[in-house]
């Protein structure tokens, strides 16, 4: 079967065009026509979108609140640690007053040179 030629195609399109343009609505009617219900409704927001937006806002609020709470807890914890360190450095044992020598006396090195000289001077006095 021979395919349709360009001229035949053109003729068929021309016939269709003639029919369509004969049924064309008036320009003014198109420009000022009342909108169809679909177009009215399409502007309304979908309840699903509203719900999704609400969930996102709620989740963001929770995340922000958690973050603030966590930083407040961290600040309180570091303040209590500082207080503990100060109290340890000031702490004294309840039996500290019973010790004869102070801690610095016990830890000091023995005086070796002065004790030898003391012994030699005592022998010369006896002779």
């Amino acid at each position: 079967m021979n395919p349709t030629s360009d001229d035949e195609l053109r003729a068929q399109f021309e016939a269709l065009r003639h029919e369509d343009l004969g049924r064309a609505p008036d320009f003014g009617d198109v420009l000022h026509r009342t909108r169809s219900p679909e177009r009215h409704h399409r502007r309304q927001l979908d309840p699903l979108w509203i719900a999704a937006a609400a969930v996102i806002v709620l989740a963001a609020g929770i995340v922000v609140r958690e973050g603030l709470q966590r930083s407040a807890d961290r600040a309180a914890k570091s303040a209590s640690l500082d207080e503990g360190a100060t109290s340890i450095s000031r702490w004294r044992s309840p039996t500290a007053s019973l010790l004869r020598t102070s801690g610095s006396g016990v830890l000091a090195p023995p005086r070796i040179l002065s004790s030898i000289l003391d012994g030699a001077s005592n022998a010369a006095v006896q002779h």
Partner: protein
Amino acid sequence: MERAELERELEILHTECWGWALACCRRDSELAEDALQSAYLRVLSGRARFDGRSSVRTWVFGVIRVTAMEEQRHRRSWTIRKARLETTIHVEDPSARADANAESSEQSATLISAMARLSPRQKEVLQLVFYHGMTIEDAAKVMNISIGSARTHYERGKKALALTLADSRPR
């Protein structure tokens, strides 16, 4: 261009625009009227601007094409939402409605059904060239594609359409 001047131009082009809107809306006349009104309002309100790079007709056809696509998308989502709200799912077949609206002659009906088998781009380029008498270059501008691409769609579409029409001829 002033609003009054644009309105005059649209009025002159109106019947041509109607034919193009009808083709862009799968021959659904109600949807075509909606799309045409939206496109006109877009042009007249200045939301679509004419930059003088093509003829006014080519530019207006481009605006109608984009607006018709948006209208169809909105219509589809609205139909789905409506069906969901009514619990009974009934999605209207646009082709059936288009058939009812068409009331065209047998020859035109054959051409319409043969066109329906082509790809959207092939349909568009053939409509612009054969129905509106545009050059392939102008059709490419309306469709926002390169001339080479438009030419390919034209050649393939024309071949497929010619074969389909030849097959549908009474033997």
